């Protein structure tokens, strides 16, 4: 990470980033540019450097925030009309930690409204364009954040991943994107999508940068009772697992030990590949990229283990029950009464609710609210939500079994490279299938890192997903260097 010093000032770094942001404005990456604030902050840091005061590990490093992180700098909109005009009085824990190390927020990045989507086409502010092909989608939901790093505007951006929202856009734009173990980074101050699945993570160009950002932001937060003790920076086998919504997940998090201290030399690593994923539904060029990396690992002395993980077929259906249920619940607070957008048309309370929510939410938001309320409604809870929770338990167990046979698993991130704008926008099921390889990690609470793995003949980036057991985050990032 290029930090500021006496020669290259923070103001220089920030102005360069702002310049590039303007240069790439057609990509529709930003929902807000923090020009004035960023420059003021840069000058503060430069003054410290000039005075010889201690500065943080990210001193003067410009970065961008996915626009679902709360901070008083600019409106936090989650790219949703219903949050229009909302400026937060509080700051997300992750943002506080980054800024305490001297990072400077130069802008807020575009996303699918409330992070609902896999293409950033569901944004109230329009889609973000792919860094490699402007006719294609950026991926999503963290599309703006991925493209900002891919186009070298900033060295890192934040993201949130509920079912693949970091890993898939990272893959579509040829960069690293990391979804940590559930509970590693505090969710406090991040607009909730589905609380038991949401993870905070980052986009970077290198594994080293990713490691640094994890060191800075990981750890227990009293404001988020689902956070884990800081296993990323220290080894604490005895500490209890986080308070997770799923009892199975919670128990699993509690007993999984941190493996940071017993990292073995790479030649003894066993890498799992999942049989079912290596099939017709996955684009051939992506399958080839996966096989190529396997060959490379074999040459380095790794053992490749074939895994049969049959219960993963329940992942997508279970995810599209649990996620909309939590979404419907979490979106209940946007009612036009206290903050954000309020429809002016309304004559009474019911019409205030109806008009505000009807005008304020995007169609995909409404679809998930309806699915979520349906699966939670009395008489259907057992048939849908409870059954999905049981499937989730099976998936957790399936991964535990798999990690008794291998150290990491390598899979595609998505079945195809970046698709064309508008291609799937009217076919929600095709869009949901984008998540088929990513959602099981969120259900199981385990970490996944997107690593760049070459390009298709058309020149589109291919990404692969390196998956590890719970709390293996540090090792996972370290091991990913073997795949460069």
């Amino acid at each position, binding site marked *: 990470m290029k930090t500021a010093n006496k020669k290259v000032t923070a103001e220089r770094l920030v102005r360069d980033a702002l310049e590039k942001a303007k240069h790439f404005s057609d990509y529709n990456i930003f929902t807000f540019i923090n020009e004035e604030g960023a420059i003021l902050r840069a000058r503060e840091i430069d003054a410290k450097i000039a005075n010889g005061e201690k500065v943080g590990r990210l001193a003067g490093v410009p970065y961008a925030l996915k626009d679902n992180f709360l901070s008083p700098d600019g409106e936090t909109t989650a790219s949703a009309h219903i949050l229009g005009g909302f400026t937060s009085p509080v700051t997300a824990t992750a943002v506080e930690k980054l800024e305490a190390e001297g990072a400077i927020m130069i802008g807020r990045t575009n996303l699918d409204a409330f992070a609902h989507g896999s293409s950033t086409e569901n944004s109230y502010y329009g889609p973000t364009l792919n860094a490699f092909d402007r006719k294609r989608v950026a991926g999503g939901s963290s599309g703006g954040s991925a493209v900002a790093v891919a186009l070298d505007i900033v060295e890192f951006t934040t993201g949130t991943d509920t079912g693949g929202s970091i890993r898939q856009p990272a893959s579509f734009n040829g960069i690293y994107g990391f979804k940590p173990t559930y509970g590693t980074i505090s969710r406090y*101050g991040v607009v909730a999508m589905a609380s038991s699945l949401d993870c905070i993570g980052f986009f970077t160009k290198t594994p080293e940068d990713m490691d640094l950002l994890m060191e800075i932001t990981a750890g227990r937060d009293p404001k988020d009772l689902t956070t884990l003790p800081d296993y990323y920076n220290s080894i604490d086998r005895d500490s209890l697992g986080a308070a997770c919504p799923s009892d199975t997940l919670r128990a699993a998090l509690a007993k999984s030990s941190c493996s940071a201290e017993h990292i073995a030399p790479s030649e003894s690593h066993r890498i799992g590949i999942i049989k079912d994923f290596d099939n017709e539904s996955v684009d051939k060029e992506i399958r080839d990229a996966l096989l190529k990396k396997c060959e490379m690992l074999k040459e380095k002395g790794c053992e490749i283990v074939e895994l049969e993980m049959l219960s993963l077929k329940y992942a997508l259906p279970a995810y599209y029950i649990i996620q909309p249920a939590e979404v419907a619940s979490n979106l209940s607070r946007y009612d036009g009464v206290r903050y954000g957008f309020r429809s002016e048309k309304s004559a009474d309370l019911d019409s205030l609710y109806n008009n505000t929510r009807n005008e304020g939410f995007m169609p995909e938001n409404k679809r998930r609210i309806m699915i979520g309320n349906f699966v939670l409604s009395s008489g259907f809870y057992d048939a849908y939500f409870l059954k999905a929770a049981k499937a989730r338990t099976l998936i957790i167990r399936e991964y535990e079994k798999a990690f008794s046979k291998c150290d990491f698993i390598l899979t595609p991130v998505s079945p195809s490279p970046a698709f064309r704008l508008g291609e799937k926008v009217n076919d929600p099921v095709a869009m949901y299938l984008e998540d088929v390889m990513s959602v099981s990690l969120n259900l199981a609470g385990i970490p996944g890192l997107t690593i760049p793995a070459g390009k298709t003949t058309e020149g589109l980036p291919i990404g692969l997903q390196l998956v590890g057991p719970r709390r293996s985050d540090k090792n996972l990032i370290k091991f990913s260097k073997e795949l460069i």
Partner: protein
Amino acid sequence: MKYTPTIGIECHVQLCTKTKLFSEVDNDARRKEPNSCVSPVDYALPGMLPRLNGEAVRFAIRAGRAMNCEINAYSRFDRKHYFYPDSPKGYQITQFYHPIIGAGYVELPSGTKIRIEHAHLEGDAGKLTHFSDYSLVDLNRVDTPLIEIVSMPDIHSAKDAHDYCKELWRLMCFAEVTYGDLYNGNMRFDVNVSLAPEGSDKLGTRAEVKNLNSFKSVERAVEYEISRQKKILEAGEKVIQETRGWNDATGKTTGQRSKEEAKDYRYMPEPDLPPINLSEEFIETESKKLPLMPKDYREKFAGIIPNDILEILLDYHELMKKLNEIDNKYVKIISNLFASVLLAEEKSAEYLNDLPSAKDLIELAEMNEKKELSSTATKEVFLRLFDPQMKGRGAKTIAKELGLIQENDLGALEAIVDAVLAKPETKKAQEDFKAGQEKVIGFLVGQVMKESRGKANPSAVQEILRKKLA
């Protein structure tokens, strides 16, 4: 046909914790500006997460033990969804599937036991004030910790419903988990009433009267419902399952919404809060902190304080704690003093806001016992003990200042008697008495009392007079 009423009661108790159930703002909104005790969490800003208040968990354990309930080692929160401006999150965080307090019972003063089905922790809602064309929202009460206590349908009369609510109130006050201020909604009752033909083992269709905030209104609402439903059944019609509101002025309940419009709360496990896992030691330690309960006082003061008086005094927890500090031999006189004040004085409860010290009360009881104070004087000194001007001076000093201490010194009394008998105006009375006119002794005693300026002990005086005139 005769009908048996069956009543089940749900009671919401506001806990008097320092901070709210899920945030660190002040939970005591009494005499505070609207919307001044609200954190970003209570206000439901985006991205805010609930933090569980450990004190509320400890209070719940105490409340549960006060009702002889099991405390569940594992409990968990759920979301109950509904849209209304009093609920900023769009859902209430409650315990639908796994409540913290399990089965138990409440014993009424009559000895009847009412079983408790369970009780759970949840956050309160805000308050709306409606005007002709707008409404105001006050979120100070949002996520004040509540426990909702659900009884079994064990109650069969309006009086038992009244007594159950009152006993529950005493238990919660004695457990020191609530301010217990009914006027300000610290405890609210929802009453389910149904009627079934006598002897039938099936319950009838019930109606629920919501949001009653006094024992009297519980009793009256139940009475009203019993007679209303009886009329319907006797006319051969059916009772509708519905929620009804109580109008205290008219003494009637009216239908609010029927089951057709019943809400679907779409319960869901709360993903932002860990389950509560309580160790046996923790439950044990907290249970031991439970102060003495009404039944403990009933046992302790049996045969010392008459039952009817004790039942009056048991409405005042601070008073019972005070009596507990006082030696049993003085309890009777002191409890009588309190009972007479509480029964006679208009604003009796005000007397109990700031009780006299046990030391003063004991001193007063001692003076009474030694006959240094007459019963009238004792009561007078007792009342002065509450007087902010007199307070802290001690019962003895007050009695002296008021000149109320009786003269019991026989030598001194004899001297006064002699002085009175020497007075010419008493000569006739002395002769009359000796001649057998018994009642003139009263006149003579009166003269002695006058001479002593009221301090003489009248029975001692009479005794001396009789001796001298024999």
